[in-house]
């Protein structure tokens, strides 16, 4: 019983995973999976962003760069071999994680806006490289043909009648759910652990933290790596979902906006914030796109951002929790 209490969160994760799986088996309206995929992807990106941005206070403005490099790693792998989607995700995570480590080293003396602008610059440099890298389609874009009936470890994953999932999009939805749950678990583990406390000290005052024995550089590097890696994983699923990727899509400004707006709307100080923000803002965006057939859906996003940051200065969770409020 005490074991159950100790692993309450992990059990919750498992329940969520089973729930996501059950959803794919219920023959729900397929739109649920499309909208769900988009919201889950946002949730994962926002969670990954928040590990660095919320806990350590380092604003990453180059989310698109990490996502894009994840996407393009997957594309390179598809073009180079017939790697399965799981391998693509791992590779995307590793490459983006290395990029995170690199940017961490490179910008270790940068703080605040300088760090933010440096990450933005990095995203633009990566995009330019991809534009000129014809093996992955370059600026012309690339069309991906997902395997029709993929198998994983001998299990037929997608097949109309015989597969675990009857449809590829349901499989991707489940995959995205699993990745998101994993990210949330990682974020929460960091938050509740020594790393999270160290990052918090860095956010509050980096020099004081360093003088209090917090190895700030090491913690920052670990964090940029994890955060970048998770973003890369979220990006690696993208080519299979879109089947056509070009740099303006993979490096869209929208990612930078959402990845910082969502945690902020939810609340940056805890793992629940980004999820809440992603669900709120992501759902509104998804719904607005498919209900308003004009430019007004962009207006809604704009108004929502302005109203939210004004009305809930500490995020949605800030309304409910006094903790960490200044």
């Amino acid at each position, binding site marked *: 019983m005490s074991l159950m209490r100790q692993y309450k969160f992990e059990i919750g994760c498992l329940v969520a995973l089973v729930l996501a799986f059950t959803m794919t088996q219920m023959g*729900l309206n397929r739109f649920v999976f499309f909208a769900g995929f988009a919201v889950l992807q946002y949730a994962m990106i926002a969670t990954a962003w928040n590990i660095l941005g919320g806990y350590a206070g380092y604003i990453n403005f180059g989310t698109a760069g990490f996502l894009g490099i994840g996407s393009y790693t997957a594309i390179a792998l598809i073009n180079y071999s017939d790697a399965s989607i799981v391998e693509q995700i791992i590779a995307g995570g590793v490459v983006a994680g290395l990029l995170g480590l690199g940017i961490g080293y490179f910008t270790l003396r940068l703080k605040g806006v300088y760090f933010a602008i440096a990450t933005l610059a990095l995203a633009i440099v990566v995009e330019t490289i991809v534009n000129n890298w014809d093996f992955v389609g370059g*600026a012309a*874009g690339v069309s991906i*043909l997902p395997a029709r009936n993929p198998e994983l470890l001998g299990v037929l994953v997608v097949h109309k009648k015989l597969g675990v999932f009857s449809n590829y*999009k349901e499989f991707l939805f489940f995959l995205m759910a699993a990745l998101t749950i994993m990210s949330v678990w990682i974020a929460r583990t960091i938050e509740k652990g020594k790393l999270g406390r160290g990052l918090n000290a860095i956010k509050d005052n980096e020099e004081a933290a360093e003088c209090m024995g917090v190895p700030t550089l090491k913690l920052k590097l670990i964090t940029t790596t994890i955060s970048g890696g998770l973003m890369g994983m979220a990006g690696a699923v993208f080519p299979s979902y*879109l089947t*056509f990727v*070009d740099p303006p*899509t993979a490096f869209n400004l929208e990612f930078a906006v959402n990845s910082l707006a969502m945690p902020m709307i939810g609340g940056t100080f805890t793992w629940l914030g980004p999820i809440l923000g992603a669900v709120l803002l992501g759902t509104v965006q998804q719904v607005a796109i498919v209900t308003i*057939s004009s430019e007004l859906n962009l207006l809604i996003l704009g108004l929502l951002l302005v109203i939210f940051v004004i009305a809930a200065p500490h995020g949605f969770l800030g309304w409910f929790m006094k903790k960490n409020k200044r």
Partner: protein
Amino acid sequence: MKSILTNRVRVKLLGGVMAAALLLSAPISTNVQAADKKPIKIGFSMALTGALAGGGKQALEGMELWRADANAKGGLLGRKVEFVYYDDQTNAKNVPGIYSKLLDVDKVDLVVSGYGTNLIGPAMPIVIDRDILFMGLFGMDNNKKWKYDKYFQILPAGPKPAEGFSHNWFEALKELGGIKTIALLAADAEFARNLKEGALANAKKAGLEIVYNKNYPPKTPDFTPIVRAVNAKKPDAFYIASYPNGSAGLVRALAEVGTKAKAVGGGMVGLQFAGLMKGLGPNLNGILNYDFYVPEPTMELYPGAKDLIARYQAKVKAENLKTDELGYYLVPWAYAYLDVLGQTVNAVGSVDDHEALAAYMHKTEFTSVVGKVKFGEFGEWTESRTIVVQYQNIKNNDIDQFSRAGTRKIMFPTDIKTGDVKPYNDLR
């Protein structure tokens, strides 16, 4: 094999008994009986904001004109036509969700594409998954990898669109004579890069020496360094595949810096738009570029296009629409891609039998506002029918001169030719 099966079964069981029960009760029939006179809903995504919105809004007006015509004639199969469409914000990421909503929630009868290759791509797996007919608008080789038999699209570039697009331009070059070297430049964007690849193949086929082959970022503000770098290579011809911003910048830079190349242009997107033509004015003189429709007398070949454009222009004026004042570029084509679909539906007598619809499309030669349309195996046109025009006699920045014949004379194909190709500098 046995272990795979048991494994699978086990996982399936994990999914729960509930799943099976729900599968049975899931909505199976999305079909609407033709007899009940419910309107036919055509669904699509369209770029109404973002980089491609200019084209998207113009296309949408063209489509609305078709809908008005179709409904005036009693609709399709005696049912009124309705549109269900959403703004994809020129962001491919929004496209899968939109098509899923159209098909699963709005339960539209037919789907057609938005405007442009990268916004058609993400819709492909969804329509293929459901095995339904899909009409594309200005997609470049979207079906190359899928090889889907129910995809058809309107872009008059022939079976190999990338090469077909510039094929005629290289034909027009021959008239100039003495072209031995060529420079190639493309915007770092999907359509432009594909055009340049095609042009490269055509240039090699024509035995031209490639002296310059580079790309530029779409947001480049100043093109004079590029034009000078090209001039330094002394090319006889300069093929440009550009997007609106670059097209305008290059036309200006060419006018300012000058060039000795005899032929300049080719795949410059945006010069067909009223806003740019008006803004560039006399700077355009001498540019040799692709086009789809120009107000030249020989374009009678496209029956009804002239009237259609006149109607569009009147509508823009009357309703004070904030779209392209002239509408030459997209209106006839947006009209045609629905017209072809409508003709097919009426001929087959069904909106549900996608096999029959696709079969009819494959075998038929259509006649629409853009003339004869015949689809090849994977839905591209069987022949390339881009026209090559040369800008000339442009005196000022007055918009009306572009709706008269003579400012964009047709150089190719020869059967509709209205002028002779002249070296760029002769028209400056």
